[in-house]
């Protein structure tokens, strides 16, 4: 599903966020990306949905060479990838419902489908009752759940969740993780970047550890800290 080869990335201001990163992730996998603040986790994900291009190396997602994609093709790549952004990136002038529905509207889905799927997704994250609120009327954790709903609403083939439980209490965090796990079992590749030690430790999945832009560890059935 994902093939990252010799990818290096430095930002215009000179920060080297990734350095010669190589990862192969299969279609059925559920992978945790861990590492300290500023390690390059978000940057790695940005490579996959082409928000940023690597300075060198290739990125292949679902047989598509992301680095060589034409600008016109980028939207179609992004529709196949659901992203839970670390900073939510909700549209401020749209309600919760509209924010989630938007991810379906861009695909040109039928109105009835949009309605049904949006309701379902909001139900899954327990935000249906706040459907008509605007993002600024939500608590941190509520925004995060709306963002999760938007990421899963159009059944993406790849789900990137960047710190999806940073503002959630342990109980809700677990529910979300179980949701991601269920989505993974329904044939969606899932990549979760997280600082939540207890979740990583209990779920026993593949763990990729980044530090200073380099892969320090890539371990099946791993835990948060190297053992």
């Amino acid at each position, binding site marked *: 599903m994902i093939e990252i080869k010799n990818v290096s990335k430095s930002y215009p201001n000179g920060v080297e966020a990734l350095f010669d990163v190589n990862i192969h992730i299969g279609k059925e996998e559920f992978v945790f990306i861990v590492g300290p603040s500023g390690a390059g986790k978000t940057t790695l994900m940005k490579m996959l*949905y082409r*928000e940023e291009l690597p300075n060198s190396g290739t990125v292949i997602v679902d047989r598509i060479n992301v680095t060589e994609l034409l600008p*016109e093709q*980028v*939207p*179609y*790549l*992004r*529709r196949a990838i659901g*992203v839970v*952004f670390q900073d939510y*990136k*909700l*549209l*401020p*002038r*749209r309600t919760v419902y509209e924010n989630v529905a*938007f*991810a379906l*509207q*861009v*695909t*040109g889905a039928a*109105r009835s489908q949009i309605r049904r799927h949006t309701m379902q997704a909001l139900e899954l994250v327990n935000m249906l009752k706040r459907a008509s609120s605007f993002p600024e009327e939500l608590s941190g954790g509520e925004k995060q759940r709306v963002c999760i709903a*938007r990421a899963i609403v159009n059944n993406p083939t790849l789900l990137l969740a960047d710190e999806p439980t940073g503002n959630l209490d342990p109980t809700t965090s677990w529910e979300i993780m179980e949701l991601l796990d269920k989505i993974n079992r329904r044939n969606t590749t899932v990549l979760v970047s997280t600082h939540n030690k207890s979740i990583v430790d209990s779920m026993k999945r593949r763990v990729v550890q980044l530090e200073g832009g380099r892969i320090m560890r890539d371990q099946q059935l791993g835990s948060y800290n190297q053992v």
Partner: protein
Amino acid sequence: MKLFGDIEFFVVEAFRGVRRSGVMSLVAIGIVTVSLFIFGLFLLFMVNLGNMVAEMGTRLDIVAYVEKAVTPDEAAAITEKLSHITGVEKVRYVSREEAWRSFRDDFTQKLDLATIVGENPLPDSFAIKVRTPDILPKVAEAVAQYPEVDEVRYSGKLIKQIQTLIDALRLGGMVLVVLLFFATLLIVVNTIRLTVLARETDIYIMKLVGATRSFIRWPFVIEGVLIGVLGGLFGILILKPSYDAVTNRLQVGLPFLPLMTDKFTLNVIYLVVGISGMLLGMLGGYISVSRLLKEK
């Protein structure tokens, strides 16, 4: 593609955009209103100025003198004949007695010409008004063809000056209208750009969740059209009563000013203002959103 569904979606999105941007949309509509009002006012002013100068030209008479005194019947016949020349607006018979009276009134306050000259040396004549000053020479020539007409006079020099002035005004007016149109364009387009720039983040997020360029673009373009149309509409709604009030006032104080009050021409001008609003809004939306879409 489900084109109609898309169009409907875009329109709904556009209305939502205008509504949800609240103050910003209102401010933008206000700016567009004011710009188009000024543009319309200027158009009206230019049309009136042109009208006045043209009217000034038509106030000049061609005077056709006849050799011998004519009877009232002959006068009526000649008036009738001359009226049929193309471009002639009005023909008036001026008897030699009338001409002498007005000549004396005009020029003999001091120099008692009447007593000097004794009898009336003036012939009968016809005062001919034409529609536009540029056809004066042609009409004069046509009038001269009539056997009854002895000699034709009109002030060629004055006409040339007026013609030059009309040409200058026409050219200057055109240049100014184009200039003001571009100014309005710059203001409207850039105002809409400001409203779009304020939603740069929205556009960026839309791109991130897989919206194509055209999917993002059209609602903004339609929003531009909406702002433009509303601005144009409000502009007209201020323009029309203002113009009516001003012309009514002027007509009372300066009855000799030839103001443009032709309903049709006025409506055309109002339409031009409205359509300008729409097109400029559209352009504004298109340009601004395209700029933002291009990045990365």
